[in-house]
């Protein structure tokens, strides 16, 4: 909200510089976000918090300055003007009293609509409004002076003698002064004459009863509308005005009549008009409730040792009436409907006493422990991230909300995803049921910017509906890119695949996954015969493989993208990272290499199992040295070179012992797999 320094100084006599004043306001809770110098004046842009509608005006801010500085606040509320008996027999009919506990109207006759005098125009423009005419400007002036919204109707455009405050009728509508037809609903409050609504109460007036250059007589409305009703209507219509902004935050009941009087006398003065009758209709005013403020409790909450006299002094400066010593009886002023509880008063005292003046005191922070499940989960999540980062993978964070199209691009068929009721755009219409779309998109983002060394992981939630429950579960996705995508360059393809497989094996090892198994699987996302499932015993943890070419192509990636997605909750449940020490070997090892040509359909897994079986417990480790497929070798075959490492835990192995184990392995491979040793 904009506040003019010069205008402000009419109500509080302060000589301090605008910058100092801005700092005081900021430190009293009204953050000045901008100080603008404008034609000899200075304008503050103040962020007024939603609990302080009383500060949405110049007198409101002046009151705060007066409280903060002790300088007197000067604003004489306008007196009720002497008025002749109203000739036309008006009546206020409050059909909905709950939504409008107080309504007043003032008739002003024989006005002369003209440009505002200089002093009003200047004030109005100083806070960024355009002067329109003396009537509109006068109501705006009073709005920004006192904070109370007013509305002026063209009296001669109203039919009948009743001003009715009622709910809108079914199918009723109104064209508001901004020339838009608004369809009204029965829970919306309107101000109506005999035949039609003439204003959406507290929000905006109707076009056909608005002040024009030809207006002669006006009816000036000043009222109190229920904040909740105004807010609901304003939200439903998508229409927020200076007026609705104040009513929905709560206006000052005691300001209804003075503001009306202020505007009426101003209009009579500047539009050379004659004052007419005044009518009001109000529920019985309730006297404000007393609040008890316990001085010891205040000091306990703030960590201060304020004396009752200091507290009384602060509250009095803010306009509160205070009695008592150790328990203060406090009555708030009518404009402070936000303070209804002891806690509210404690904040007021702290605010004016100054947060800066409260010392910082070390707290007896109670060392708190994480619950066991969470502790275990967070520890394993950190371990997983550390492992992946040290394997060269970069963590990505992608949006949890994605477009349905993104799933379609992945040929996603499951409809169990969660939709957003009020998405901002199609890009955020559903919650991701998988991390893969995000990580593929991130990979594509990088390849399209000539970044090809792509190793990514994301460890975040996915979301889905299960048996009508809305679930979120942590998942882990990995992506590794290789530029080649043709079979001729299968070396590169395989490097990608086995690299990713190795990372998953390493991760499983670090976390201590029990019974880890990798098995071939088919998936509509991944290449056939080139994708595997990751299991712990019989529990499925996830899958990995090379994305099918049609998927990578849809995302605009040329090349191969190897991906994996793992149910991280399951992974954590299968992980038991406890370790026991194994004594170190005391005798040296020896190794023998064996190379052979073998049918491509014989899996390495089988060869490995055979070597272990035949070599017995002398075999410590089996290492794949190389694989060769190509021209040098018969079609349908591949050549493998394998290193077998032998060691005994009891003695140094002799040449004979090693030789006989090696021979058994060689002949085993030869006979079992019909392989040709080289």
């Amino acid at each position, binding site marked *: 909200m904009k506040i003019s320094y010069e205008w402000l100084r009419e109500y509080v006599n302060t000589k301090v510089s605008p910058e100092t004043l801005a700092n005081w306001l900021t430190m009293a*809770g009204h*953050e000045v976000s901008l100080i603008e110098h404008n034609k000899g004046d200075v304008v503050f842009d103040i962020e007024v918090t*939603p*609990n302080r509608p009383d500060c949405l005006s110049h007198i409101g801010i002046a009151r705060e300055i007066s409280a903060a500085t002790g300088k007197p606040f000067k604003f004489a509320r306008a007196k009720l003007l002497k008025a002749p008996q109203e000739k036309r027999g008006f009546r206020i009919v409050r059909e909905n009293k709950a939504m409008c506990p107080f309504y007043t109207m003032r008739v002003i006759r024989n006005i002369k609509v003209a440009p505002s005098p200089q002093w009003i125009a200047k004030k109005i423009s100083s806070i960024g409004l355009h002067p329109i005419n003396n009537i509109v400007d006068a109501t705006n002036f009073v709005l920004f002076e006192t904070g109370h919204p007013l509305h002026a109707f063209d009296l001669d455009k109203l039919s009948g003698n009743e001003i009715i405050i009622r709910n809108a009728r079914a199918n009723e509508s109104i064209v508001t002064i901004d020339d838009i037809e608004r369809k009204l609903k029965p829970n919306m409050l309107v101000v109506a004459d005999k035949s039609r609504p003439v204003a959406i109460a507290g929000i905006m007036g109707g076009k056909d009863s608005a002040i024009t250059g030809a207006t002669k007589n006006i009816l000036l409305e000043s009222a109190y509308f229920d904040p909740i009703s105004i*807010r609901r209507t304003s939200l439903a219509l998508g229409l927020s005005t200076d007026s609705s902004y104040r009513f*929905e935050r709560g206006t000052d009941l005691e300001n209804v009549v003075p503001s009306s009087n202020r505007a009426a006398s101003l209009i009579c003065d500047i539009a050379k008009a004659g004052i007419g009758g005044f009518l009001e209709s109000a529920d019985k005013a309730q006297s404000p409730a007393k609040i008890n403020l316990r001085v010891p409790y205040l000091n*306990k*909450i*703030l*960590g*201060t040792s304020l004396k009752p006299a200091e507290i009384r002094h602060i509250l009095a400066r803010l306009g509160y009436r205070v009695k008592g010593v150790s328990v203060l009886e406090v009555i708030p002023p009518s404009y402070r409907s936000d303070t209804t509880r002891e*806690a509210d008063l*404690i*904040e007021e005292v702290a605010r004016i006493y100054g*947060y*800066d003046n*409260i*010392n*910082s*005191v*070390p*707290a*007896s*922070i*109670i*060392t*708190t*422990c*994480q619950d066991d499940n969470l502790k275990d989960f*967070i520890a394993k999540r950190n371990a997983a*991230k550390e492992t992946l980062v*040290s*394997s*060269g993978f*970069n*963590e990505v*964070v992608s*949006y*949890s*909300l994605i477009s349905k199209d993104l799933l379609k691009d992945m040929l996603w068929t499951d409809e169990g995803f*969660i*939709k*957003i*009721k009020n998405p*901002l755009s199609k890009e*955020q219409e559903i*919650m991701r049921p998988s991390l893969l779309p995000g990580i593929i998109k*991130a990979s594509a*983002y*990088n390849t399209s*910017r000539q970044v090809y060394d*792509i*190793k*990514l*992981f994301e460890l*975040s939630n996915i979301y889905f509906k299960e048996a*009508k429950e*809305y*679930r*979120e579960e942590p998942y882990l996705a990995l992506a590794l890119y290789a530029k080649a995508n043709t079979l001729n360059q299968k070396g590169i393809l395989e490097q990608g695949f086995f690299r990713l497989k190795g990372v998953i094996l390493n991760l499983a090892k670090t976390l201590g996954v029990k019974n880890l198994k990798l098995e071939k699987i088919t998936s509509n996302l991944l290449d056939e015969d080139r994708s595997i499932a990751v299991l712990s015993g019989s529990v499925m943890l996830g899958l990995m493989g090379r994305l099918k070419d049609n998927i990578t192509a849809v995302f605009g990636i040329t090349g191969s993208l190897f991906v994996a997605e793992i149910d991280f909750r399951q992974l954590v449940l299968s992980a038991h990272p406890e370790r026991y020490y194994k004594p170190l070997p005391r005798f040296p090892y020896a190794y023998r290499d064996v190379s052979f040509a073998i049918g491509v359909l014989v899996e390495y897994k089988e060869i490995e199992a055979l070597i272990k079986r035949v070599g017995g417990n002398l075999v410590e480790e089996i290492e794949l040295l190389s694989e060769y497929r190509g021209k040098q070798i018969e079609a349908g075959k591949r050549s493998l070179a394998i290193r077998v490492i032998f060691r005994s835990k009891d003695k140094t192995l002799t040449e004979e012992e090693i030789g006989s184990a090696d021979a058994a392995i060689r002949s085993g491979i030869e006979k079992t797999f019909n392989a040709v040793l080289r």
Partner: protein
Amino acid sequence: MKARLKEIEIQALFEIDAASTQQALEGIRAKYLSRKGVLSQLYKELGSVDEKDRPMIGQGINRLKAIFEQDIKQRVHELYGKTGLTESEVFDVTMPGVCPEIGKKHPITKTIDDICGVFSRMGFAIIEGPEIETEFNNFEALNIPLDHPSRDTFDTFYLDTENFETDPQKRRLLRSHTSPVQIRYMQNHKPPFSIAVPGTVFRPDATDASHSFMFHQIEGLVVGDGINFANLKWALFEFARQYFGELTKVRFRPHFFPFTEPSAEVDVSCIICAGQGCRVCSQSGWLEILGAGMVDPNVFNKVNIDSEKYSGFAFGMGVERIAMLKYGIDDIRLFYENDLRFLRQF
């Protein structure tokens, strides 16, 4: 025996001097100093030496052992400690190093880890909670009534639940702040406690350089007997000092939050210009980084904690904002584009 020692000494020292390779020296070491070497043999023969000469001979062998070890090392230095290399031995040390390939955690993760690390060391437990929440936990329990303008700052994504209009109990939303985790924690734990809660939050804001519909927050809550505003000041001052540096100044400004009373916005002295005033802090010298306050009694009432017996403070901060200030990042979208050229910088 004494003469033999002298003989061995002369012979060995001659051999050491004559050796011109490392292998030759290793051979000499084996010959004289190994378990089956000459000196070991001499030790074995000690028993047959006259008892009165035994200590003297023993010391003599020890002395030889020390001399040989020393001289072999000395010879290694003579042989290999040369200065200057031939042209073919020289390599270009200014060629790039071979860096082991390592990845990086996302800067958001890094920022969360760093901040939570500070609170962890202060005794806070790091707690997490779900992103899909109820209206009760996200709003009502936090004293944010449905029809109050204070909800304006908490615009929220709702899930498309069945009978959305008629069944508010079953409505679900994406939490618009991490504060609902406070509610969950207080429902299940008795005070006193201190927790810090990092997490992802969502608000339907149009995306631009400084707004994102998804971002991250870290929340803190301390509840106990006699916890007061002065303690809150201390906790956040300590945090700022530890995270932003020793010279950081902290300023508390009154503000309004529905769930705390009194409430404050907390500024730190600008980390770019050290409070002198610059573009980043709009010349004010201060950067707003936190919201904080004393837990509103209404919040305690909602979770059945006796607000007469216990009091507490709470605070919250935006992770992206802090990361942007700390690393000088000027566009929030960079965090979610996942450009590796960006990610590798942290």
